[in-house]
């Protein structure tokens, strides 16, 4: 044992640079692993975590303000199944101005103190909560997603007396019971009750709602039935079930799950490969020494113990450093990741994660060392001393013969010869570089695909330039105005209809009429519906959800109606941009007779080529309190996707950095091992520049191999992931794009990375003293 420890110390002292590089690699891999695990920790049940942290309500009831009585609320709150209630919640639906856009929102009174707020608290994502006595607003985070409302902006509210009031936005909040789907509620703006009263003094005009926390969270339907039975008919207008909100939240976050899951998986695999590759290469490079050690009496077990001991010492230094770096750096990316999942950030300071990293990394190190050291321990002493781990091939390899036939310079040939002389080590280095390539291709493909969709929003199903909504103005008057505007080339009206299938699955139908042919609807499968027919087109999400195909009939009941179901034949599939693709589009004429309000309130516009949007806005909204509201189409790609794109690029950069360190390390080891050969080559006349070229040629060739392998692998990986993502998101097929020029550009980049990684070791080799090498023989 003393001999082993003596040798461990001697090795670590004599090869300080190599030991430092391996420690650095282990630390980088540990950091990557920490970030990956921390991402998984933050991805774990985000909705449930937030819901519990905020003591979310399981059931939210919206009442008719004319019919509901205080006694009703008290009776509901006193039900044995109800554990806690929010008490009556007051709100007013109103239009507010955000920038140049007027938006319908629900202005909701909330308690100013957390103590008065036992159920369904809000999570303040940015800024702060309301302060007593201040005229200010706390906005729902959806207003940030939809209209880019920021903390510090001002929103314009029209008071009951018609006067405009501007309130500063002091924070953005997440409400665990605001349903992003199947919800007729507009986005929320939270005010103090005093502020709401100052704006709308007539309390009778306020809407009433109530949030309930139940003893059995699964019993929402039973409790709802019980409540409906208690109340007079039509007292309960609508409700929100926490199951629906959770489903919508999970749907909405699915894209994030896919990308983050892929990131974590990729990072974990990369961490394992980096460690395995590095240690295997290092042990393989010491095969001659293993032969000598065996010759002087080391038993195979002692050889294994020696190398395992060496790398465990390095892992013991590198792992805590990487863990600490990962923990320190994790808030930078993960706070946003958590926010994108509408969850609070979980710092990776938990015992399980720390234990996992501190156990997993040394374990990987031990396994990687065991495999290589065991090979060394079993090697024939004479052969190991003579030729190292990999005996040279008897015949030059095909690529080597090809390179010779091509008449490549001798220095290049010598470099390439080294690559093929040690195929296993070359393979490991190439694998590491290829990981970097895969990371870049992943980022590039994602970026280009998003750019394609950004440049052509019709691919996402966004086929209009602007949306007009109306209040009191009649449908005919609105159409008249739109048809007279020189800035509007075409328009169609839409009524959104809530429907339900026979088995109780509810979704929304876009019932449209107008100049549809002028809009570039993208039909990914089948065809567009014929005008005036009972045909429909569906989003991929709806087809998947209901198990339908093109050609199938779909029958639904209009919500709130009890007549004969409406039936359409699905003739095509289109990319539906919202509601996870769970939408249907039909002719308005096919169900207009069945609707209480059959006239559109929303109109989608195609603007003329030289449209003056400012003039159009002034035309449709001549006064601040104008009834018509024009909103130009903003960014079609959600901001969170752009963030994820950047995260993927950051990952690619980390992997490239590790690849660079690894090429450096491998080149250094190779140079160390080749010292005698380099000395010899210099003796027979190789110049320092030729030595650098020779070592660079070997590394550059591995860069070429890595690019050739990594580009298709990266593209295939991205395509698979995006296909999964698009299916989950209800887009149908996604056009995955990678510019061949970028792919070609990767070739010089990876060659440059490889050559750069080998440059310093090459210089070191070029500078070695021939006499020193010969003296050490």
């Amino acid at each position: 044992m003393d001999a082993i420890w003596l040798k461990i110390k001697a090795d670590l002292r004599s090869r300080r640079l190599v030991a430092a590089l391996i420690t650095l690699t282990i630390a980088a891999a540990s950091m990557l692993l920490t970030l990956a695990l921390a991402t998984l920790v933050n991805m774990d049940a985000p909705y449930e975590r937030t819901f519990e942290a905020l003591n979310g309500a399981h059931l939210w009831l919206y009442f008719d303000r004319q019919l509901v009585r205080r006694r009703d609320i008290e009776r509901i709150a006193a039900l044995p199944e109800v554990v806690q209630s929010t008490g009556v919640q007051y709100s007013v639906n109103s239009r507010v101005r955000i920038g140049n856009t007027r938006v319908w929102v629900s202005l909701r009174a909330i308690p100013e103190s957390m103590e008065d707020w036992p159920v369904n608290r809000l999570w303040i994502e940015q800024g702060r909560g309301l302060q007593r006595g201040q005229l200010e607003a706390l906005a729902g985070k959806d207003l940030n997603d939809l209209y880019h409302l920021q903390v510090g902006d001002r929103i314009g509210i029209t008071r009951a007396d018609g006067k405009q009031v501007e309130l500063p936005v002091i924070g953005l909040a997440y409400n665990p019971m605001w349903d992003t789907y199947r919800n007729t509620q507009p986005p929320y703006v939270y005010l103090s009750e005093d502020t709401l009263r100052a704006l709308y003094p007539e309390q009778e005009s306020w809407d009433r709602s109530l949030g309930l926390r139940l003893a059995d969270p699964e019993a929402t339907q039973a409790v709802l039935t019980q409540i409906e039975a208690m109340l007079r008919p039509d007292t309960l207008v609508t409700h929100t079930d926490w199951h629906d909100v959770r489903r919508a939240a999970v749907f909405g976050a699915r894209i994030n799950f896919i990308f983050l899951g892929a990131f974590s998986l990729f990072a974990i695999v990369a961490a394992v490969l980096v460690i395995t590759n590095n240690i295997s290469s290092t042990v393989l490079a010491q095969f001659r020494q293993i032969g000598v050690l065996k010759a002087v009496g080391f038993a195979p077990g002692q050889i294994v113990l020696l190398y395992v001991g060496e790398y465990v010492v390095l892992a013991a230094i590198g792992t805590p450093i990487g863990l600490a770096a990962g923990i320190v750096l994790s808030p930078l990316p993960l706070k946003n990741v958590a926010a994108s999942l509408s969850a609070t950030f979980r710092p990776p300071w938990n015992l399980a994660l720390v234990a996992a990293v501190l156990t997993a990394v040394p374990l990987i190190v031990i396994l990687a060392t065991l495999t290589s050291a065991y090979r060394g321990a079993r090697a024939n002493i004479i052969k190991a001393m003579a030729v190292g781990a990999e005996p040279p091939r008897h015949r030059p390899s095909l690529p080597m013969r090809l390179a010779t036939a091509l008449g490549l310079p001798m220095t290049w040939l010598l470099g390439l010869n080294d690559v093929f002389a040690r195929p296993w080590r070359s393979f490991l280095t190439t694998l590491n570089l290829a990981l970097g390539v895969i990371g870049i291709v992943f980022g590039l493909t994602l970026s280009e695909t998003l750019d394609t969709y950004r440049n052509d929003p019709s691919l996402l199903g966004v086929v209009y330039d602007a949306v007009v909504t109306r209040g009191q103005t009649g449908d005919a008057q609105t159409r008249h105005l739109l048809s007279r505007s020189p800035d509007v080339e075409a328009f169609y009206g839409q009524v959104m209809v809530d429907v339900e299938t026979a088995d109780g699955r509810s979704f929304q139908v876009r019932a449209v009429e107008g100049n549809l042919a002028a809009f570039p609807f993208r039909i990914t499968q089948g065809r567009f519906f014929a005008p005036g027919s009972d045909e429909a087109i569906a989003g991929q999400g709806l087809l998947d959800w209901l198990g339908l195909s093109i050609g199938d009939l779909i029958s639904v009941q209009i919500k709130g109606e009890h007549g004969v179901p409406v039936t359409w034949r699905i003739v095509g599939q289109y990319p539906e941009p919202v509601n996870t693709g769970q939408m249907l589009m039909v002719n308005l004429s096919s169900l207009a007779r069945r609707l209480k309000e059959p006239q559109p309130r929303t109109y989608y516009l195609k603007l003329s080529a030289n449209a003056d949007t400012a003039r159009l806005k002034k035309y449709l909204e001549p006064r601040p309190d104008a009834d018509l509201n024009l909103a130009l189409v903003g960014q079609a790609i959600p901001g969170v996707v752009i963030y994820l794109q950047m995260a993927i690029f950051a990952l690619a950069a980390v992997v490239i950095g590790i690849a660079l360190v690894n090429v450096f390390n491998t080149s250094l080891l190779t140079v160390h091992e080749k010292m005698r050969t380099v000395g010899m080559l210099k003796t027979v006349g190789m110049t320092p520049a030729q030595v650098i070229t020779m070592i660079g040629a070997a590394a550059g060739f591995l860069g070429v191999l890595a690019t050739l392998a990594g580009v298709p692998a990266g593209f295939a990986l991205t395509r698979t992931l995006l296909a999964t993502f698009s299916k989950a998101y209800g887009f149908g097929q996604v056009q995955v794009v990678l510019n061949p020029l970028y792919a070609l550009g990767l070739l010089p980049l990876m060659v440059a990375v490889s050559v750069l990684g080998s440059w310093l070791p090459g210089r070191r080799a070029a500078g070695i003293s021939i006499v020193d090498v010969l003296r050490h023989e």
Partner: protein
Amino acid sequence: MSALVELVDLEKTYPVGGSTFYALRGVSLQVQRGDFVAIMGPSGSGKSTLLHLTGGLDRPTAGRVRVGEHWLQQMNESELARFRRANIGFVFQFFHLIDNLTVQANVELPALLLEKKNKKAIRQRSTALLERLGIAAQAHKHPWELSGGQQQRVAIARALINSPTLLLGDEPTGNLDSASGQEVLHILEEFNALGQTILMVTHDAVAASRARHVLFIRDGLLVDALPGGDAQRIARRVTELQ
């Protein structure tokens, strides 16, 4: 300028701990074209250092080295490399062949570094050398598949492939058995007879006796010279000097 090699007041020192070790203390020497000179001396006497400085593998602390028309102390690293490539052939005690190249590739390597185009001529020359040295059958083998004697013959072929002005041997028989050593010396004699200038460092009086001249070095100074041929006389002189 009649001598092929001219060493003038060569000094070489190495720092050892806090002090300075003098490997050479002002050696001056001339080697004529076509000569075969052996340098003998005890371990640490400076004989290998002398060889390294002559071949441009190392730089003197003081003094000058000329080989042919080249003053080595004026050259930078790249110029020295090109000089070695064209003018010097080295044969070492431990062969220093490249493991993952075949015998023939090892031999051709310096020529390929020197002449990038004329590969056919290089192949002809390497084949001829291998045949002459009796190892043509081993041309496609790797060094580790050969005996020590065979490996040293490969090293000699490699040293001669560029028809160097000067062949330097650093204990070329030191790692060989007696019979193989004799074969190597015989080969060197043959090439010397054809006009090849050889400077060889050796411990072995028998090997030194195969040279035309034998120089004795001790403590970094040339102390004596004898003609070659008489191994016993050379051995006695070595003993006297120790």
